[in-house]
């Protein structure tokens, strides 16, 4: 999928929020949805499926209007976190320009975090994409939970962020870190376009 179309003068970024179940991906989208003026955003689509195994994701289109003469649109997706929805995850991941990995900061969720991260890598590979080339940022969500239940961002970096990508502590429910994350991934995606390669 072409990120920047110079003939129609459009920029379309597809950003996928990835992570284990109940880590707060949809919460991220809901927060963004609430902050975007109505004229700028499309209807947020949450597909909770016909049968229990196919489509199941959230979709939020945002229209950023004309930027440098380009009609700029962001499409934010979340994948279903539950392990058994991998087919859907793979589908949603297709053609993604950037990935936000939303991790659960709770110490007891560390294994799920790791498993999901590996799943991301293998699903990208299924699409013939090397995880090292995809713009990626990490968000450590639920940092508002009591200290004793969670790992610090530094600890999570050590555990999950072996690529050293930008990472953000967040409290998606209250909006902390949500836009920082979105901004960061947008920059990475757009910079990648500046480097002249389209995803």
């Amino acid at each position, binding site marked *: 999928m072409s990120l*920047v179309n*110079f*003939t129609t*003068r459009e*920029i379309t970024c597809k950003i996928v929020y990835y992570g284990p179940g109940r880590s707060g991906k949809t919460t991220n989208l809901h927060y963004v949805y*609430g*902050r*975007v*003026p*109505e*004229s*700028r955003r499309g209807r947020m689509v949450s597909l909770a499926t016909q049968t229990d195994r196919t489509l199941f994701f959230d979709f939020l289109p945002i229209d*950023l*209007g*004309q*930027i*440098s*003469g*380009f009609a*700029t649109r962001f499409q934010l997706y979340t994948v279903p976190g539950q392990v058994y929805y991998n087919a859907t995850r793979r589908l949603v991941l297709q053609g993604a320009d950037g990935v936000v990995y939303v991790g659960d900061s709770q110490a007891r969720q560390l294994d799920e975090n790791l498993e999901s991260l590996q799943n991301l890598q293998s699903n990208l590979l299924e699409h013939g994409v090397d995880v090292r080339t995809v713009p990626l940022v990490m968000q450590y969500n639920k940092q508002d939970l009591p200290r004793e239940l969670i790992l610090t961002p530094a600890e999570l970096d050590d555990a999950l962020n072996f690529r050293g990508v930008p990472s953000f502590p967040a409290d998606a429910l209250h*909006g902390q870190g949500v*836009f920082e994350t*979105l*901004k960061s991934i*947008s*920059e990475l995606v*757009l*910079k990648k*376009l*500046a*480097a*002249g*390669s*389209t995803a």
Partner: protein
Amino acid sequence: MTSTLNPKFTFETFVVGAANRLAVTAGRTVAENPGSAYNPLFIYSGSGLGKTHLLMAIGHSAKQLAPQLNIEYLTLDEYVEAFHAAIAAGQGDAFRRRFQNVDALLVDDVQFLTNRKEMQAELLRLTEALQQAGHQIVLTSDRPPAEIADLDERLISRFSGGLVVDMGVPDYETRVAILRRKAEERGARFQPGVLETAAGVEFPNVRELMGALNRLVAYQAVNDTPINAEAARQVLGVAASGAPAGLSTAASPTAAVSTGDEFSQFLTDVTVTVGKAVEAWRARVAEAVLRWEGEGYRTGRLEKLLDHDSPAAVDEAIASYIHDVERLKALEAEVGALDPQAAGDKVFRDPERMAEAEAEAAKVRDGAAPPPAPSGAFPLDSYAFGSSNDVALSAARAVIDAPGKKYNPLVLVGRSGLGKTHLLNAIGLELMKKKGAVVACLSTQDFVDELIAAIDGERVDWWRARYRRATALLLDDIHLLAGKDRTQEELFNLFNQFMDGDRQLVFTAPAHPNKLEGLEERIVSRLEGGLVAEIGDPDRAVRHTALERILGQQKVTPDPALLDYLADRPTDSVRSLTGVVQRVVEAAAAQDQPVTAGLAREILEGQPAAGARRTTGLRTSGLVVSSAGGVRSREKMVWDWPSAADRVIEDLR
């Protein structure tokens, strides 16, 4: 049936912002050069963003710059109505004529063409006619041509063939500027911050923005007190965040402010990033594409660059593209001077086809359209000379030696068949041998026909340019100009230019110019101003030489007796000699005998040669009108009887 232009809708009252700058610039260009810049100009935008305003502004501006222009503004619905009314009244042709004669046609809301096949066909015809005549068309729509449902492919390509520009929603600054200007127009004054508050609301179009202003004006008038920013917010039902009420989900004002900021901050950041990305090579390419596309050049080569991930040497590619375009421009200008019609060729707009453009230019330059050259069938060497034409011949030699200097113009006068055309072409051929010479040599009839064709094809400029290029102009049978006023006019101008440039002019005429009827005085006097050289009836020497040539052409070895016999025969023109020789040669071939003087006499005089005498009562020239043909051709008739001396010699034989 046609709307008049609303006097308020001018460029002066149009607020220009980033979202509509391109459209306005294009509009101004079109108003300044209707028909030549972007044709058609297609403007699209959402409802209420100023399409109609811009369209009318173009009309006003064009009218102001050139008041004589016939400008029609109408909406598509009006056009359709007018068309239906005209058809109903049986005035379909008058309707078409009326629109084909406008200099600038401004049609609003063409998206309503959907599902109107017959109107599409009508508009297609009109667009074609207007474009061909170089008349401007400006169209507006709420969507680009390709998105108008059910629109004929040919219309889509026509509409897209000029310039398609869109106008977006005005940004905040533009909104403020619009509100200020409109408030000023209404004589309404607001406290600082009021208009800014209204501008802060992201209305989807300017009309709603005007609605907001109306509310503010009305509120202020009713309450008799100046409204402030806070009150304005209430009037407009705006939550503090800057979005109309009902959109904001924020609970507390502070949170709302921060959330509003959060998104706009994000937007700013993205803008900066995109800006950086777009400033990179792609932006330069895109800019070049836009620029040259705007000038009407094909940009496929540049667009291809954008398909690459990281093409090498982008700037070089752009530079070479520009270089090619400059070359095309030069070629186009050059060709334009020679043949304005050919300059319109689209190869001059396509840097992909440089070679073709060069070839086309070369074709125009050297040969596609040179003026007709002298015929190679009339070399000077084969021109028979004698006392009857030595004045003309020596004048011709003088002209060949010093074209334009000595006898200019040279007018060769003589009856038909004396070799005027031969001498004219011979002069032309000799002149052509000079370096850089372009000799135009043709019959006056062809000259007239060419001009008529040029007028018919609207190529008169090209036609003129073609002859102006010539270094010598040789016209056969100038008397045919009689009654051709336009050609005389053109010739007069050419004449003067040739004389000014010391370029040679040679004409032939059957009689002295002052005896020719139907020629304008100014032409006659100019013809007389040079040398009028007469060619008399061919003398014996001329006949002898001419016969030698003619017999040579017939592949007959000229035997001296035959030559003498034939040359001694009186004749009034060289051309009739050809007829005589032909008769003899054919008869000889039929009888399977060699061509001899005896045979010739037998054939020509119709009697056995031996001792035969002509009966005195029957005088013939020896030329018998063919009984099969039965046509009394001048060439085969004897008009002037041989002189007594000639007859004596004949009698002695």
